[in-house]
């Protein structure tokens, strides 16, 4: 099959699905809408696999399929083709997106079965996938930006899906605007790159960029990557723009799974993996990225430990995991970042869907304090969730372990990394284990704390199947990227397939100087920490339910600050949004109405005053008029005679 046609099919299926559902958005027929949408994505998934196979058939160092449909923008030196690029990096992405996407679509059929506007929902979802595919497939920065904004747009629509609730609509808007801040940075990054190197195509950029490491903050590469990173902080919810993601949980849960866990939020990571050859030339940016990622991971994890809303916990967990990925990017471990992106997509999507299943079962209840003991009622959900939990806290051999460990090791040993970064990473890992176990304990284990009129019921098969598939992936997903040290001791010496796959297309991870023993021992430390934290959480929340409260009281102010998410939202409101609105009102009232308009009024008043003066001078007295004449004559004659 022709590659162009394949890519076209890949892209158009979701778009057609969107159009199909969008044009009959009033339809109540959720099954039809869901089936069409799911089929569309499934076809895309098939296309992705076919593309992957096509890539496999190419030699290892020339696995690039590039298709340009038409010139999109051509002005001056700027030529932006409407072109797509399938290489190992984007191949991984499209597989994840369409794969996880089709599962989540499937899940949504059941989840949205009682909604008023299922067709609209699936339309948005398909549109999102379309945009996400453009994002990852675009062969230039501008195409990426198209998808970048497009997914933001769909995110806006989906978060505000239940728009009659003003809060949810506000959350959508917050997401879009926050993303827009990042997008503005992204734009500037594009400008700098284009004006410095004269192209926005990835291929050209890789060729054109001088292979010289920049050491100045003002160098074009450093500036450009920094601005691109601002874009990434918006999209991928990093400090300081992460605030929208927790609010984004206002949307339907499958949306959170698809957009705010598996795909969209990882776009930033994808971008830097894609741009790795540039990034390594700007070590200062890498430092910034690494530290931002690490801090985000830490802060988000700490907030996650205190939240009671099941989706909020998962949201902060997502932020935290994204922090990991950026940490990996920052230390030059691009493979690890991409790897973690993938595994995270599996287990986080799983957990979100699981939480969706829980919420569905609990009739839209999201507070974990009102759950507990759901293991009995929701066995499948519990089982799958359990596997996800094991994956995220990094228990070998679950998927999360391999990717996370790779990141921690690189942040310790890479020349870009250092011990502090590793320490933060490790602490975060422990915190992750804590809050995830806490979530498990409060939701599924222990006694049930919900009212008698609530009768949780297991999800229908359309919801169960995706859970199971994802659970399997969460288990085995990591096995394709087994680190060398582990692979060495395993039977059959499985190679790091994932690393090999990406290797020719990524700037190779820097030479790691560290012995295998060190790696093993660090691995042990992190697993140990995670285990300890998990046990502590289990103990606290299942066996001694009053301990958390005691600790919270003991922590006092610190707990309150963390519980209130460090008052970041409030801070933004106080420092930026409210002053902005006040300023705007001031500008309007004092500059527009009271100054510029007043100035014109002053001018007219002046004229009118002068007119009034003339009217008084024109007093109707003949002799006064004669006097004006006489005085006028005298003055004119005097001037003329002088």
């Amino acid at each position, binding site marked *: 099959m022709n590659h162009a046609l394949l890519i076209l099919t890949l892209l158009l299926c979701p778009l057609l699905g969107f159009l199909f559902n969008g044009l009959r958005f009033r339809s109540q027929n959720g099954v039809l809408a869901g089936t069409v949408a799911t089929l569309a994505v499934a076809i895309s998934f098939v296309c992705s696999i076919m593309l992957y196979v096509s890539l496999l058939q190419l030699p290892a160092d020339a696995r690039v399929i590039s298709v340009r449909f038409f010139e999109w923008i051509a002005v001056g030196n700027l030529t932006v083709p409407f072109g797509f690029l399938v290489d190992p990096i984007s191949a991984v992405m499209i597989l994840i997106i369409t794969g996880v996407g089709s599962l989540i679509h499937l899940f949504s059929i059941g989840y949205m079965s009682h909604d008023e506007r299922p067709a609209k929902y699936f339309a948005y979802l398909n549109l999102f996938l379309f945009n996400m595919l453009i994002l990852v497939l675009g062969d230039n920065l501008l195409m990426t930006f198209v998808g970048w904004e497009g997914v933001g747009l769909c995110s806006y629509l989906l978060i505000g899906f239940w728009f009659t609730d003003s809060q949810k609509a506000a959350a959508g808007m917050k997401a879009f605007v926050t993303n827009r801040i990042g997008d503005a940075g992204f734009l500037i990054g594009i400008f700098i790159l284009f004006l410095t190197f004269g192209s926005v195509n990835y291929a050209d950029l890789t060729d054109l960029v001088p292979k010289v490491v920049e050491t100045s903050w003002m160098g074009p590469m450093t500036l450009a990557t920094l601005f691109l990173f601002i874009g990434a902080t918006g999209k991928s919810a990093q400090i300081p723009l992460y605030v929208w993601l927790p609010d984004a949980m206002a949307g339907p849960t499958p949306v959170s799974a698809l957009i705010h866990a598996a795909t969209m939020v990882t776009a930033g990571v994808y971008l830097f993996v894609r741009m790795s050859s540039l990034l390594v030339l700007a070590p200062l940016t890498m430092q910034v990225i690494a530290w931002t990622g690490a801090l985000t991971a830490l802060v988000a994890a700490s907030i996650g430990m205190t939240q009671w809303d099941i989706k909020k916990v998962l949201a902060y967990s997502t932020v935290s995991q994204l922090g990991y990925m950026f940490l990996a990017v920052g230390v030059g471990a691009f493979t690890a970042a991409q790897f973690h992106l993938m595994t995270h997509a599996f287990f986080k999507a799983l957990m979100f869907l699981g939480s969706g299943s829980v919420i569905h079962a609990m009739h839209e209840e999201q507070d974990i304090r009102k759950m507990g003991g759901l293991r009995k009622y929701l066995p499948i959900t519990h089982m799958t969730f359990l596997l996800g939990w094991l994956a995220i806290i990094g228990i070998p051999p679950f998927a999360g372990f391999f990717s996370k460990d790779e990141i921690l090791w690189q942040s310790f040993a890479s020349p870009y990394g250092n011990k502090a970064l590793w320490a933060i990473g490790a602490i975060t890992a422990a915190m992750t284990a804590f809050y995830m176990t806490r979530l498990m304990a409060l939701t599924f284990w222990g006694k049930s704390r919900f009212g008698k009129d609530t009768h949780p019921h297991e999800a229908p098969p359309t919801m169960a199947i995706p859970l199971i598939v994802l659970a399997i992936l969460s288990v085995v997903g990591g096995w394709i990227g087994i680190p060398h040290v582990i692979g060495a001791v395993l039977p059959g010496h499985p190679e790091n397939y994932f690393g090999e796959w990406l290797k020719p297309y990524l700037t190779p991870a820097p030479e790691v100087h560290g012995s295998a023993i060190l790696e093993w021992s660090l691995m042990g430390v992190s697993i140990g920490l995670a285990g300890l934290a998990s046990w502590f959480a289990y103990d606290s929340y299942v066996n001694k339910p009053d301990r958390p409260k005691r600790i919270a009281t003991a922590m006092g102010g610190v707990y309150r600050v963390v519980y209130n998410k460090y008052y970041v939202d409030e801070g933004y409101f106080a420092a930026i949004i409210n002053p902005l609105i006040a300023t705007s009102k001031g500008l309007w009232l004092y500059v527009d109405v009271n100054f510029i308009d007043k100035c014109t009024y002053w001018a007219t008043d002046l004229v009118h005053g002068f007119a009034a003066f003339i009217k008084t001078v024109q007093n109707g007295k003949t002799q006064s008029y004669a006097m004006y004449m006489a005085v*006028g004559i005298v003055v004119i004659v005097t001037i003329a005679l002088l």
Partner: protein
Amino acid sequence: MQINFGLIDVLLVSPALALFLASAIPLLIKVLRGNREQNSFATLIYGYLGIVVAVGMTFAMMGTERSAFDGALVFDGVSSFATLVILFVTAASLTFSSESFSTNDRQFTEMLFLVLNCAVGMLTVAWSNDLIVTFVGIELFSLCLYMLIALSLEERASKEAAFKYFVLGSVASAVMLYGISFIYGTVGSTVLPEFLAATPNLLMTNRLFLIGFILLIVGVAFKLAIFPFHSWAPDVYQGSPTPLTAFMATGVKAAMLAFFLRLMAAQAFTVERFWPFVDTLQWLAALTILVGNVAALRQKSLKRMLAYSSMAHSGYILIGLIAAGIGGASVLGAAGVLFYLFTYSLMTIGTFGVLHLLEGRADSDLTLEDLKGIAATKPWLALNMTILLVSMAGIPPTLGFFAKFFVFSAAIKQGLVWLAIWGVVGSIISVYYYLRPIVAMYMESAVIRQDRVELRPLSYFMVTVMALLVLAIGVASEPFYQMVLASVTVVF
């Protein structure tokens, strides 16, 4: 001693003769028939007849430059142009008068007599080549106007207006005459060419001549309502019956401008000794524009507003006059003046005609209130008024725009950029009050009026003609401008 005049001189002045005869015949008839007023339409026909003959004679005599009565009168492009304008406005205002409540009564014959002889005076001024003749002409039309205003049936203000005009006009004539006496004394002659030939030299050496020259210009400026000699204009325009306001606002200016242009032909402004005065004159132009436009902003009475606006137009014309006077490409300035004069006459006659058509009683003084909702009841009239006002504001493609364009062009060409900019500022102010009547007509709801106004077909026709001319000549101004240019090139 030679007596060097003949039939040709009589033929040359025949427009004036025709007017006089046409004015005398109905009066004679009236006297002979025992002082009984004739049908006003018949009287009007006599007037038209005289005007038609006058126009015909003017056309017949046009083309070559001639002088009559031993050089006391001159017939060249400027004078024929002014003649035609004067005859045109006379015809128009006679038409309005015959249908106006305030002028058409038992004394319409006398009225017509005065108007036509007034026109004779104006023609004389336009033709005169001798200060003595000029003065007599000025006095003739001034006295006619004083009495015409007083003749109005409109009781409230016309007497006052006439008296004010009389006193101030007489003072102005006295001043002008005083200036003429100095000119006569220093030049030794009142003949215009001699006076103008001696001007550059005398301006340098003789202060008395300088004063004389200035006083002469003051006299002219009074008639043109140039600041600070303008104060009479609003009061008199407001107090006069509308047809006559139209007449004196246009005819007087036509005559005086022809005379002024002759003065400017001397290029006296190029004399260095005269520069302070030239500067002053520029300031007067600027102030005239400013005061005219600003004062018009706050007028309730539409006639008064138009009076101020016509004062502002005088200011624009003065810009052209200065441009014509300072040497260099004077032709542009002079052509601009004549073109503006024509434009101004059309617009003023037209607007006053509309006001006249809206007047329901002898002593009505229309305000903006009276215009409200006209667009609904009299759409065609409102449209005409709109075209005329838009033209007055100088918005293309109407004639008013081109008039301003030519005057500003001349000013810029002559380096008087600041005056052009000042004129522009004035135009901006003027837009406001020119638009207000439009606002009232179209955008505000009608007020119920008591007095029914019957159809006045002749006036209606005249107004329509004005509006259409304003549009048509505006779109095709070139042939007309060429004509004007040709008529001034002889003088300049």
